[in-house]
Protein backbone atom coordinates (compact mmCIF):
# COMPACT_ATOMS: atom_id res chain seq x y z
CA UNK A 1 0.00 0.00 0.00
CA UNK A 2 1.49 3.39 -0.89
CA UNK A 3 1.61 6.32 1.48
CA UNK A 4 -1.21 8.24 -0.15
CA UNK A 5 -3.56 5.29 -0.09
CA UNK A 6 -2.65 4.49 3.49
CA UNK A 7 -3.49 7.99 4.71
CA UNK A 8 -6.72 8.16 2.74
CA UNK A 9 -7.80 4.87 4.29
CA UNK A 10 -6.62 5.82 7.74
CA UNK A 11 -8.61 9.06 7.63
CA UNK A 12 -11.71 7.20 6.49
CA UNK A 13 -11.29 4.62 9.19
CA UNK A 14 -10.85 7.12 11.99
CA UNK A 15 -13.18 9.89 10.80
CA UNK A 16 -16.27 8.63 12.61
CA UNK A 17 -14.70 9.15 15.98
CA UNK A 18 -13.99 12.77 15.26
CA UNK A 19 -17.35 13.97 16.51
CA UNK A 20 -17.93 11.46 19.24
CA UNK A 21 -16.52 10.32 22.53
CA UNK A 22 -14.89 13.38 24.08
CA UNK A 23 -17.00 15.30 26.54
CA UNK A 24 -16.36 18.97 27.01
CA UNK A 25 -15.16 19.77 30.55
CA UNK A 26 -17.87 21.29 32.74
CA UNK A 27 -15.71 24.37 33.38
CA UNK A 28 -15.54 24.96 29.61
CA UNK A 29 -19.33 24.71 29.36
CA UNK A 30 -19.52 27.22 32.19
CA UNK A 31 -17.20 29.58 30.34
CA UNK A 32 -19.19 29.17 27.13
CA UNK A 33 -22.46 29.93 28.87
CA UNK A 34 -21.02 33.00 30.59
CA UNK A 35 -19.58 34.25 27.30
CA UNK A 36 -22.83 33.72 25.39
CA UNK A 37 -24.97 35.50 27.97
CA UNK A 38 -22.47 38.35 28.28
CA UNK A 39 -22.52 38.69 24.48
CA UNK A 40 -26.31 38.63 24.41
CA UNK A 41 -26.41 41.42 26.98
CA UNK A 42 -24.15 43.74 24.99
CA UNK A 43 -26.84 45.06 22.66
CA UNK A 44 -29.87 45.16 24.90
CA UNK A 45 -31.49 43.52 27.90
CA UNK A 46 -31.81 39.79 28.32
CA UNK A 47 -35.23 38.19 28.26
CA UNK A 48 -36.78 39.10 31.60
CA UNK A 49 -36.81 36.54 34.37
CA UNK A 50 -40.64 36.42 34.54
CA UNK A 51 -40.75 35.81 30.77
CA UNK A 52 -38.10 33.13 31.09
CA UNK A 53 -40.12 31.44 33.81
CA UNK A 54 -43.29 31.77 31.75
CA UNK A 55 -41.50 30.01 28.87
CA UNK A 56 -41.21 26.99 31.14
CA UNK A 57 -37.61 27.39 32.20
CA UNK A 58 -37.12 27.22 35.96
CA UNK A 59 -35.15 29.90 37.79
CA UNK A 60 -32.45 29.46 40.40
CA UNK A 61 -32.98 30.77 43.91
CA UNK A 62 -31.35 34.14 43.20
CA UNK A 63 -33.22 34.66 39.95
CA UNK A 64 -36.40 33.72 41.74
CA UNK A 65 -35.88 36.55 44.24
CA UNK A 66 -35.05 39.07 41.52
CA UNK A 67 -37.96 38.19 39.26
CA UNK A 68 -40.39 39.66 41.79
CA UNK A 69 -38.77 43.09 41.73
CA UNK A 70 -40.99 45.54 39.80
CA UNK A 71 -38.15 47.07 37.78
CA UNK A 72 -37.37 46.15 34.18
CA UNK A 73 -33.64 46.74 34.65
CA UNK A 74 -33.54 44.30 37.55
CA UNK A 75 -35.58 41.48 36.03
CA UNK A 76 -33.49 41.59 32.86
CA UNK A 77 -30.11 41.72 34.54
CA UNK A 78 -27.72 38.81 34.61
CA UNK A 79 -27.14 37.88 38.27
CA UNK A 80 -24.76 35.08 37.23
CA UNK A 81 -22.21 37.79 36.49
CA UNK A 82 -21.72 38.40 40.20
CA UNK A 83 -22.52 34.90 41.45
CA UNK A 84 -19.93 32.78 43.26
CA UNK A 85 -21.26 29.72 41.42
CA UNK A 86 -20.04 31.13 38.12
CA UNK A 87 -16.57 31.90 39.46
CA UNK A 88 -16.17 28.45 40.91
CA UNK A 89 -17.64 26.61 37.94
CA UNK A 90 -15.42 28.39 35.42
CA UNK A 91 -12.28 27.34 37.25
CA UNK A 92 -12.98 23.97 38.85
CA UNK A 93 -14.31 20.77 37.39
CA UNK A 94 -16.40 19.74 40.41
CA UNK A 95 -17.00 22.84 42.52
CA UNK A 96 -19.11 22.75 45.68
CA UNK A 97 -22.22 24.38 44.22
CA UNK A 98 -25.63 22.84 44.62
CA UNK A 99 -28.30 25.43 43.76
CA UNK A 100 -31.29 23.89 42.01
CA UNK A 101 -31.81 25.14 38.43
CA UNK A 102 -28.41 26.86 38.33
CA UNK A 103 -26.90 26.31 34.86
CA UNK A 104 -23.43 25.97 36.34
CA UNK A 105 -24.62 23.14 38.56
CA UNK A 106 -26.36 21.50 35.62
CA UNK A 107 -23.14 21.51 33.58
CA UNK A 108 -21.51 19.37 36.28
CA UNK A 109 -24.25 16.78 36.00
CA UNK A 110 -24.41 16.32 32.24
Amino acid sequence: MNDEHFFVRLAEKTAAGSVAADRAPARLKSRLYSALVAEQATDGPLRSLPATKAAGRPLCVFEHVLQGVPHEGIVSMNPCRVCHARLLAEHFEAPPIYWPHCPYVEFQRR
Partner: protein
Amino acid sequence: MLAEEQALLDGVLAKDRKAAAEFVSRYADAVYGYVSRRLAPRRDLVEDVVQDVFLVALQKLASFAGQSSVVGWLLGIARHKVEDFYRAQLREPDSLPDDGEVPSAASTVTLDLDELIDAARAEEKTRHILERLPVAYSAALQWRYWEKRSTKEMAAHTGKTEKAIERLLARARSAFRRLWEAS
Protein backbone atom coordinates in the same frame (compact mmCIF):
# COMPACT_ATOMS: atom_id res chain seq x y z
CA MET B 1 -34.07 20.61 11.90
CA LEU B 2 -36.38 19.33 14.62
CA ALA B 3 -39.13 21.53 16.06
CA GLU B 4 -37.53 21.12 19.47
CA GLU B 5 -34.22 22.45 18.14
CA GLN B 6 -36.00 25.36 16.48
CA ALA B 7 -37.69 26.23 19.78
CA LEU B 8 -34.31 26.18 21.50
CA LEU B 9 -32.77 28.48 18.88
CA ASP B 10 -35.76 30.82 19.12
CA GLY B 11 -35.14 30.99 22.85
CA VAL B 12 -31.48 31.87 22.33
CA LEU B 13 -32.44 34.53 19.80
CA ALA B 14 -34.90 35.96 22.33
CA LYS B 15 -31.95 36.25 24.74
CA ASP B 16 -33.37 33.69 27.09
CA ARG B 17 -30.45 32.82 29.39
CA LYS B 18 -31.77 29.34 30.15
CA ALA B 19 -32.00 28.61 26.44
CA ALA B 20 -28.38 29.67 26.13
CA ALA B 21 -27.47 27.21 28.88
CA GLU B 22 -29.36 24.42 27.12
CA PHE B 23 -27.67 25.34 23.83
CA VAL B 24 -24.26 24.90 25.47
CA SER B 25 -25.26 21.70 27.23
CA ARG B 26 -26.57 20.13 24.10
CA TYR B 27 -23.85 20.99 21.60
CA ALA B 28 -20.59 21.66 23.46
CA ASP B 29 -19.52 18.01 23.55
CA ALA B 30 -19.74 17.56 19.79
CA VAL B 31 -17.85 20.76 19.02
CA TYR B 32 -15.25 20.04 21.68
CA GLY B 33 -14.74 16.47 20.43
CA TYR B 34 -14.16 17.63 16.88
CA VAL B 35 -11.88 20.54 17.73
CA SER B 36 -9.79 18.63 20.25
CA ARG B 37 -8.99 15.95 17.69
CA ARG B 38 -8.25 18.32 14.87
CA LEU B 39 -5.93 20.60 16.82
CA ALA B 40 -3.59 17.88 18.02
CA PRO B 41 -1.02 18.42 19.42
CA ARG B 42 -2.09 21.96 20.43
CA ARG B 43 -4.62 20.95 23.08
CA ASP B 44 -3.92 24.19 24.89
CA LEU B 45 -5.83 26.05 22.15
CA VAL B 46 -8.91 23.84 22.12
CA GLU B 47 -11.03 25.67 24.68
CA ASP B 48 -10.46 29.10 23.14
CA VAL B 49 -11.34 27.78 19.68
CA VAL B 50 -14.52 26.14 21.00
CA GLN B 51 -15.49 29.42 22.62
CA ASP B 52 -14.89 31.24 19.33
CA VAL B 53 -17.15 28.74 17.58
CA PHE B 54 -20.01 29.41 19.98
CA LEU B 55 -19.62 33.18 19.77
CA VAL B 56 -19.61 33.08 15.97
CA ALA B 57 -22.67 30.81 16.11
CA LEU B 58 -24.45 33.35 18.28
CA GLN B 59 -23.65 36.12 15.81
CA LYS B 60 -24.90 34.05 12.87
CA LEU B 61 -27.83 32.40 14.56
CA ALA B 62 -30.45 34.74 13.12
CA SER B 63 -29.36 33.84 9.59
CA PHE B 64 -29.20 30.08 10.18
CA ALA B 65 -31.84 28.74 7.83
CA GLY B 66 -32.09 25.32 9.42
CA GLN B 67 -31.20 23.46 6.24
CA SER B 68 -28.82 21.25 8.19
CA SER B 69 -28.86 20.01 11.75
CA VAL B 70 -27.69 22.43 14.40
CA VAL B 71 -24.74 20.23 15.23
CA GLY B 72 -23.79 20.01 11.55
CA TRP B 73 -23.95 23.79 11.30
CA LEU B 74 -21.81 24.23 14.40
CA LEU B 75 -19.25 21.74 13.13
CA GLY B 76 -19.12 23.71 9.88
CA ILE B 77 -18.16 26.81 11.86
CA ALA B 78 -15.67 24.72 13.84
CA ARG B 79 -14.13 23.46 10.62
CA HIS B 80 -13.45 27.02 9.49
CA LYS B 81 -11.81 27.78 12.81
CA VAL B 82 -9.66 24.67 12.59
CA GLU B 83 -8.63 25.58 9.06
CA ASP B 84 -7.64 29.04 10.30
CA PHE B 85 -5.32 27.25 12.70
CA TYR B 86 -3.85 25.03 9.96
CA ARG B 87 -3.37 28.03 7.70
CA ALA B 88 -1.54 29.93 10.42
CA GLN B 89 0.70 26.95 11.17
CA LEU B 90 1.67 26.41 7.56
CA ARG B 91 2.17 30.11 6.87
CA GLU B 92 4.73 30.46 9.65
CA PRO B 93 8.15 30.16 7.98
CA ASP B 94 9.63 28.49 11.05
CA SER B 95 6.77 26.04 11.32
CA LEU B 96 7.92 24.06 8.33
CA PRO B 97 10.72 21.89 9.68
CA ASP B 98 13.29 21.13 7.04
CA ASP B 99 14.97 17.95 8.11
CA GLY B 100 16.93 17.39 4.96
CA GLU B 101 16.05 15.14 2.10
CA VAL B 102 12.45 14.91 1.01
CA PRO B 103 11.35 11.28 1.12
CA SER B 104 10.84 9.93 -2.36
CA ALA B 105 7.40 8.91 -3.48
CA ALA B 106 8.79 5.49 -4.19
CA SER B 107 10.05 4.97 -0.67
CA THR B 108 9.50 1.54 0.75
CA VAL B 109 6.16 1.34 2.48
CA THR B 110 5.71 -1.17 5.20
CA LEU B 111 2.54 0.12 6.77
CA ASP B 112 0.46 -2.74 7.92
CA LEU B 113 -2.99 -2.95 6.41
CA ASP B 114 -4.14 -5.19 9.24
CA GLU B 115 -3.56 -2.35 11.67
CA LEU B 116 -6.43 -0.54 10.02
CA ILE B 117 -8.93 -3.27 10.63
CA ASP B 118 -9.63 -2.28 14.19
CA ALA B 119 -10.93 1.30 13.92
CA ALA B 120 -10.74 2.04 17.61
CA ARG B 121 -7.13 0.93 17.82
CA ALA B 122 -6.24 2.77 14.64
CA GLU B 123 -7.83 5.92 16.00
CA GLU B 124 -6.03 5.78 19.30
CA LYS B 125 -2.71 5.13 17.62
CA THR B 126 -3.30 7.88 15.08
CA ARG B 127 -4.20 10.39 17.74
CA HIS B 128 -1.16 9.50 19.76
CA ILE B 129 1.14 9.92 16.77
CA LEU B 130 -0.43 13.20 15.64
CA GLU B 131 0.16 14.57 19.12
CA ARG B 132 3.84 13.67 18.93
CA LEU B 133 4.52 15.17 15.52
CA PRO B 134 5.66 18.77 15.00
CA VAL B 135 2.57 20.98 14.82
CA ALA B 136 3.09 21.82 11.14
CA TYR B 137 3.27 18.13 10.21
CA SER B 138 0.19 17.27 12.21
CA ALA B 139 -1.73 20.23 10.78
CA ALA B 140 -0.70 19.42 7.22
CA LEU B 141 -1.71 15.76 7.47
CA GLN B 142 -5.05 16.49 9.08
CA TRP B 143 -5.85 19.25 6.64
CA ARG B 144 -4.98 17.08 3.65
CA TYR B 145 -6.47 13.73 4.68
CA TRP B 146 -9.05 14.30 7.40
CA GLU B 147 -10.42 17.57 6.03
CA LYS B 148 -9.85 16.33 2.48
CA ARG B 149 -8.29 19.50 1.14
CA SER B 150 -6.20 19.21 -2.01
CA THR B 151 -2.59 20.34 -2.04
CA LYS B 152 -3.67 23.05 -4.45
CA GLU B 153 -6.23 24.39 -1.98
CA MET B 154 -3.74 24.22 0.88
CA ALA B 155 -1.22 26.14 -1.19
CA ALA B 156 -3.78 28.78 -2.08
CA HIS B 157 -4.80 29.23 1.56
CA THR B 158 -1.25 29.54 2.85
CA GLY B 159 0.48 31.47 0.09
CA LYS B 160 2.92 28.57 -0.39
CA THR B 161 3.59 26.83 -3.66
CA GLU B 162 1.93 23.50 -4.30
CA LYS B 163 5.40 21.99 -4.49
CA ALA B 164 6.23 23.30 -1.02
CA ILE B 165 3.04 21.78 0.36
CA GLU B 166 3.84 18.45 -1.30
CA ARG B 167 7.32 18.48 0.21
CA LEU B 168 5.90 19.25 3.63
CA LEU B 169 3.36 16.44 3.28
CA ALA B 170 6.05 14.00 2.17
CA ARG B 171 8.10 14.80 5.27
CA ALA B 172 5.02 14.65 7.48
CA ARG B 173 4.00 11.25 6.09
CA SER B 174 7.50 9.97 6.56
CA ALA B 175 7.62 11.15 10.18
CA PHE B 176 4.17 9.67 10.82
CA ARG B 177 5.21 6.39 9.24
CA ARG B 178 8.30 6.10 11.40
CA LEU B 179 6.21 6.54 14.54
CA TRP B 180 3.52 4.18 13.27
CA GLU B 181 6.04 1.44 12.62
CA ALA B 182 7.79 2.02 15.93
CA SER B 183 4.64 1.83 18.05
